[in-house]
C-alpha cells in the first residue's frame, strides 16, 4: 500500500513541478512575442497558476508527511547501515527545503493574488523562484533516494 501513496506523491510532485516551472520562468520573461519554444513555455498567465501551485504544494507535502514514517523505518535505517550517510543527509536537507517553500507559500500567494502585478515585482519573482528551485531540488533528491539501490 505504501507504494501506492509513494507513486501518488510522485504524480502530484510532477504536476506541481510543471505548474511552478511555467510560472517560475514566466516571472523572468520580458514582454515580447513568444517565438522560440522556451518563450512559448514561459509565456503563461502567472497569476492563474498561484492557487494551483498552493493546492498542489499542500497536497504533495501532506502525502510526503504520510509516507515519511515508513521511510524512516525501512529506507533511512538501511541507507545508514550501508554506510550511505550522505544520502541520508540529502534527505534530511530535503525536509528543511520543503519547509522553506511551505513557509513562503502564504507570502507567495499574497504577492500573486492580492498585490497589483505592477507592484513588488522583485519579491514576487524571488519567492516564486525559491519555491520553484525547492520543488526541483526535492524531486531530484527524492528520485536519487528512490533509485539509490540501483545507483550504488
Amino acid at each position: 500500500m505504501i507504494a501506492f501513496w509513494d507513486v501518488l506523491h510522485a504524480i502530484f510532485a510532477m504536476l506541481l513541478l510543471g505548474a511552478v516551472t511555467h510560472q517560475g520562468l514566466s516571472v523572468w520573461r520580458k514582454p515580447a512575442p513568444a517565438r522560440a519554444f522556451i518563450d512559448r513555455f514561459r509565456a503563461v498567465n502567472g497569476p492563474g497558476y498561484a492557487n494551483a501551485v498552493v493546492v498542489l504544494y499542500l497536497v504533495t507535502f501532506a502525502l510526503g508527511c504520510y509516507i515519511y514514517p515508513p521511510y524512516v523505518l525501512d529506507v533511512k535505517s538501511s541507507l545508514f547501515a550501508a554506510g550511505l550517510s550522505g544520502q541520508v543527509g540529502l534527505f534530511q536537507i530535503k525536509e528543511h527545503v520543503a519547509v522553506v517553500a511551505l513557509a513562503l507559500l502564504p507570502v507567495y500567494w499574497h504577492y500573486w493574488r492580492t498585490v497589483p502585478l505592477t507592484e513588488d515585482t522583485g519579491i514576487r519573482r524571488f519567492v516564486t523562484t525559491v519555491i520553484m528551485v525547492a520543488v526541483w531540488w526535492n524531486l531530484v533528491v527524492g528520485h536519487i533516494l528512490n533509485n539509490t539501490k540501483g545507483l550504488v
Partner: protein
Amino acid sequence: MSFSPRVFSLVFGLVYTVAHLLEMPLWRYYPLVGKFSLTDLVDLSNGPSMNWYGWMSYAAIAGVIAAVVVPKRIDNKIPAAVFYVLPFVILVCGIYTERSWFLAPPTG
C-alpha cells in the same frame, strides 16, 4: 479579525528554525511503535523518534496566532527584504544541523 499571510510566513519560518536548532519539538512520533509523545521516550525499544512534525506544529501554531493578532499597521511595516533573507536563514540552519551526515565515516 483578519489573517496576515506575510506575518504567518515570517513567524512560521523563524519559529521552525528556533525549534529545530534547539531540538525542541512540540511532540514526537515513534513510527516503530506508532506512539505520539509530548516528551522524549528514552526507552530504545520505542525505536527512532521523528521530531520534524513537532517543529512544524510549533511553527504553525505560532504563525496562526501571530497572523491573527498582529495588527495591519505593523504588518505593513514589515519590509519585503525580510522575505529575501528568510529562506536562507531556514536553509543555512538546516544544513548546519545536518552536517554530521556528511562528516560521519561510512559504517557499512
